Structures are given as structure tokens and as C-alpha cells.
């Protein structure tokens, strides 16, 4: 086990593309670290740099305090699980798992013992003689895991290992990988673009965008206190609702102008909001903090709009409401929207925002009806429009 330290790490390709830019991060010994971000954000490049498969253009990468910038992959004692598993197709499951041990020149009897133990741990005992092409997706995934853990490396690197599995299997493997990591206690860096995986698996999450670290923190920190608009929209599903607002001085103190209405600024709102009076800023609120009026305090600020869609998920009801407000169309938000679903922004129409509220399943809401929603005042988040930074 070991710590992994990125100190101002850069990766610039010969054509000038900057894949990773001044990356600073310390993955602690035994920690499960998640790198998350949209396609092309540099997360896989950062991971490959740890593996030694990608040259480091600038900065320093240390494993357990030792600089590894110029070390060959085999000298780093790290194991990697690839997105498509990269199982050797001409070898049996046994030989695939044994390959890293054989490469180290370990005795055959010890190899047999360790492979058998690993196979038992992963439930692969019956499949040791089979070829990868004769295995199911989940079994292949386990073989790839087996090949990584059999070596007892200092660091595990996982590059979107669940992206090729179907939804149900993904949930199962997610739990298995988390459990395995806790059992083995090996420092792990896990790359994903799926923020559910990121939120559920990691001790800490690093959100990347265009090669730059946006925020580093525990899953709940990222969810409740996103550092900027990009993290706010990227983390959470359905995404955070965002409206353009303008703080103004009202009769009873500070108010927010939103789509022709005015709502009172709650006392919990950050004091720094005063510095933005008269300027346009973004108000963000998570779907679960848009409440049905019956479940909210009378004092909670309200908005109202037309219900366009109700998604019943059994344990909750997602209500899509078309609210009169100005949408946030900064590059941060658009990038995430493009990554997830380019259509979301178009559906609301001019001067409207398509908001999503997470209601209890027993609350009955009809499509095409007008629905009031209450905003939980203490959960309202504010961001600068130009820089995207959170106002705190």
C-alpha cells in the first residue's frame, strides 16, 4: 500500500493539447479516490500517468514519496483494470490471472496457490480453464480484477471498469469492488464518468474538467457545497436546478428577482450575496429541495409552473415543471448538458426553465396542471455567473 502524490503534474501532447493542467492531489494510503468528469476531461490521462503508460510532461508524480516520473510501468508496482478489461484472449482464465506473477518470476507452486486463492475470492474457481471469450461480461470483469489483485500491488488503478456492464450488474459489481477495496485496503484510483459510481464508491472525489481539478472532497461535500457551477451541475442526478436571479434591496431586506417574481432571501443565505446586488447571479437548488407546498413551511419561498412530465420511480416521483425564469447558459452548464443530454435545455422554451422536483411517491401530481413548489431556504446555493464560483 502506498500514497500517490501529484505535484503540479502536466500533460501536453505534441499537437499542443493540454490534457492535464497543473494537477495537485494527494491520494492517501489505503484511500479509495475517484476521478470523475465528462469525456475528455483528462481523468484517464491522469490515471495512465500513474500506471506509467503516459509520459508526464511537467511536474512530479510520487508513489510512497518516491518520484516515479521516469520509471517503467513494471517498476511501479501498480495494477490496472482496463475499461475493456484487456484480457489476453489466447490464454485461459488461470493463465490470465497468473500472468503478472509469472512475469515476476515467481515459483509455479506459489503461483498456483495465489491464483487459486484469488479465484476463490472472486467466485471464479469453476471458470479457470475457460477462455475469456466464453465468459459473461461480469465474469470477465472479475477476471480483470483477479489479475490486478493477485499481485498484491501497492496501488490499484481502475479505468471505468463497469462501463461495459448492464445496469443491474453494474450495481452489483459496484458493491463488490467497494467491498473488495475495503477488505484489501489497497490505495485505489478509480476513473469514471458516472457520478452515481463516484458518489457511492469513493472516500473522496476529484472532479476534473478540461484537465483542471475543479473540486476535491468527500461525496457529501461535493453534493452539498459544490465549488462552482460545473461541479454543481455535474454532480447529482437529476442535475441541480439552476435559475438566473438578481439580488435587489426590497422593503423587508434582500430579495431575489426571478422570472418577474420576487422572493425573500432567506436568513441562511451567504452574507456575500450583498456584494452582488443588482448583478445577475445563479441560484441552484437540488430536486429534493423543491418541495410540494404541503410539505413546506409557509414562509418558504415559492415558484409555480406547468407540470410537463411525471416520472414515477416507485420510491419517488420526479416532477418536471416548466417555470418562468431565465435559464443559466454559461459554458460550464452547457458542457455538462452536452455530456448528459443536449436536449434538456431546448425543451423549456424562451424565458423558461425546466426544473425537476423530487416528490414523495404518494403525492399526486397531474401532467399539464399548475404546480407550486417551495424552495428549502437553507439549501439554496448561489454562484457567480462570470466565473462560475460559488458565493459563500
Amino acid at each position, binding site marked *: 500500500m502506498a500514497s500517490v502524490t501529484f505535484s503540479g503534474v502536466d500533460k501536453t501532447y505534441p499537437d499542443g493539447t493540454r490534457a492535464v493542467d497543473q494537477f495537485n492531489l494527494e491520494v492517501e494510503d489505503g484511500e479509495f479516490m475517484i476521478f470523475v468528469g465528462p469525456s475528455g476531461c483528462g481523468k484517464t490521462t491522469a490515471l495512465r500517468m500513474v*500506471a*506509467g*503508460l503516459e509520459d508526464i510532461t511537467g511536474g512530479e508524480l510520487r508513489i510512497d514519496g518516491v518520484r516515479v516520473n521516469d520509471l*517503467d*510501468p*513494471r517498476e511501479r508496482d*501498480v*495494477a*490496472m483494470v*482496463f475499461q*475493456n478489461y*484487456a*484480457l*489476453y*484472449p*489466447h490464454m485461459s482464465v488461470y493463465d490470465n490471472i497468473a*500472468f*503478472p506473477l509469472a*512475469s*515476476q518470476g515467481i515459483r509455479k507452486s506459489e503461483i498456483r496457490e495465489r491464483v487459486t486463492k484469488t479465484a476463490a475470492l472472486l467466485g471464479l474457481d469453476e471458470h479457470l480453464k475457460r477462455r*475469456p*471469450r466464453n465468459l459473461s461480461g461480469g465474469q470477465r470483469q472479475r477476471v480483470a480484477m483477479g*489479475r490486478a489483485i493477485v*499481485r498484491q500491488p501497492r496501488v490499484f*488503478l481502475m479505468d471505468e471498469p463497469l462501463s461495459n456492464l448492464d445496469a443491474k450488474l453494474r450495481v452489483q459489481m459496484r458493491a463488490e469492488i467497494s467491498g473488495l477495496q475495503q477488505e484489501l485496503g489497497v490505495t485505489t484510483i478509480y476513473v469514471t464518468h458516472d457520478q452515481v459510481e463516484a458518489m457511492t464508491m469513493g472516500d473522496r472525489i476529484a472532479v476534473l474538467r478540461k484537465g483542471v481539478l475543479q473540486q476535491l472532497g468527500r461525496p457529501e461535500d461535493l453534493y452539498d457545497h459544490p465549488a462552482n457551477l460545473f461541479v454543481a451541475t455535474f454532480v447529482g442526478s437529476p442535475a441541480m436546478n439552476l435559475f438566473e436571479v438578481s439580488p435587489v434591496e426590497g422593503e423587508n431586506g434582500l430579495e431575489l428577482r426571478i422570472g418577474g417574481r420576487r422572493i425573500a432571501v432567506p436568513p441562511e443565505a451567504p452574507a456575500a450575496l450583498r456584494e452582488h446586488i443588482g448583478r445577475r447571479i445563479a441560484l441552484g437548488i437540488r430536486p429534493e429541495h423543491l418541495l410540494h407546498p404541503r410539505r413546506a413551511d409557509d414562509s418558504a419561498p415559492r415558484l409555480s409552473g406547468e407540470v410537463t412530465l411525471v416520472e414515477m420511480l416507485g420510491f419517488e416521483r420526479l416532477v418536471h415543471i416548466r417555470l418562468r425564469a431565465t435559464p443559466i447558459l454559461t459554458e460550464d452548464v452547457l458542457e455538462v448538458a452536452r455530456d448528459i443530454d443536449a436536449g434538456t435545455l431546448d425543451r423549456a422554451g424562451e424565458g423558461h426553465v425546466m426544473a425537476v422536483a423530487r416528490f414523495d411517491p404518494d403525492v399526486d401530481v397531474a401532467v399539464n396542471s399548475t404546480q407550486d413548489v417551495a424552495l428549502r431556504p437553507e439549501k439554496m446555493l448561489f454562484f457567480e455567473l462570470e466565473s462560475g464560483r460559488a458565493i459563500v
Partner: protein
Amino acid sequence: MFLTRYTWRTGLREVLLLLVAAVWWLPIYFLAVGSVKPNEQNFSSPFALPSRIDFGVYSQAWKGSGNGTLGRSLESSLIITIASIVALIVLGSLAAYVVARASNRLGNGLYLLFVLGIILPFQLAIIPTYSAFRHIHLVGNYAGMVVLWTGLLMPLTVFLYTGFIRALPRDYEEAARVDGATRMRTFVRVVFPLLRPVTGTVAILTGLIVWNDFFLSLVFLSGTKNVTLPVTVYSYVGVYAAQWNLIFATVVVSVVPMLAFYLFAQKNLIRGFTGGIKT
């Protein structure tokens, strides 16, 4: 439904295809029948079935005449062909791996150089090559022929291997590197086994060229006991009369090993041409 219905058109198509097949089989018929016919019948009625079947020519050919016996030249052909194929596969696959995985510029440059080697006719350099080979005692022996063929067919081999390796995902090699394998171990244990289809193609294509060659064997081996089958066949062609039954028997013997090898490696050959790795 339409395709499975047997109509008069289908029947006509079948008859036509059978006729085409018959035309293709005609030389093989000539060869097989001609080798067991008395020689004079090959002249009097070349198309007819043999009046009597005589395998005697095979033993006569085996004993041989002049320089080469059939047995000895079969041995020469086999040794030269197999050794050349092995050398080409070992050296060619390694060279192609470097060419395919080198940085873009270097890789492309080397690749072009090899392609140029396919285009240029080797006959241009036959005299200096012969003279150089004689100086280093590589004329008239197996080693010389193997060196010659390995050099001449290396461009084709590298060309075939490079195309295949370039289409091979790098993930396997990267996984092997992270798994702690050296470059050589990665090649031997991971890359080379994945090249099996194209290795089959290389073996058959180069094998056919070496096996069927007449010119180079004549130039570099004639006058020795190491001549290959095609040269031995030629020795049966006299100035005034040719021993056609003997020639046919030798040709039958020379075709059989290649045909057997082709049938054995046919699947790989086709896959090598069409490319791709199934995971």
C-alpha cells in the same frame, strides 16, 4: 423464401458452375492421369484415360537421373522452405512489431522502406548477389538459400505483419507492461500468439513462393545435389524429348505437401486476409 426455391434458373446456374469447376480441374486431371500413363500414350491420346495404370514412374523418379533424385530434391525443397518460413516469421514479426509501434514518423519511414522492397525487382541485383554469396560460401548450400529467401521475402512479410499489428488494440500490450512483463516477454507471450492468423498467411504465401521457385534454385543450386523439386522437374525435360510421365509424377509429389499444408492452415489464411482478433 426466394433464395431457397429451386427453379430452372438455379439448375442452370449449377450446371454453369460445374462446368467452370471442371475447367479448373482439367490441369489436375492431366497431371494425375499423365503421371500413371505410359509415356507414349501421353502423346498419342493425351485426354484419354490410361490404358494401364503404372506407378513405376514414381519409383523411377524417386531413384532419379543425373544430379537430382526426387527424394533428395523433396528433402531440399522441404528444408529450404521450412527454414525460410521460420526465419521469416521470427524476424519479420519482430521487425513489423517495431515498425508498427514506433513513433509515427519513424514507423512510417521504415514501413515505406519495406514497401519499396516489395516493388523493386530482385532480378536487378542477381549478379552482384550471386558474386557476394559465392565469396561468403553461400552458393550451392541450404544456408545460402535460406538467407537469400529471408532477405527477399522480408518486405512482404513485414508488410503483412505491420498491417495486422497496427489494427491490434494496444490495450493487451499496455496490460502486459503494467503486469510487469518486459518488452520481449510482452511480444512473445501476448502479441505473437495474437498474430496467429497473419502468421498463417505469411507461412502460406512465402512458402508457396519458395516452394515453387525455379529461377533462384537454378542459379544458386544447380550442379549440386541440393537442387529443389522444380529444378529436378526441369532435368527431365530433354533437348529432343521430354519424359512427361516422369515430370507429371514429380509435379504430383511436389504439389502434395503444399496442398496438405494449405488445407491444414486454410482457416488461418482466410482470417489473416480479412483481419481482426476475436476476444
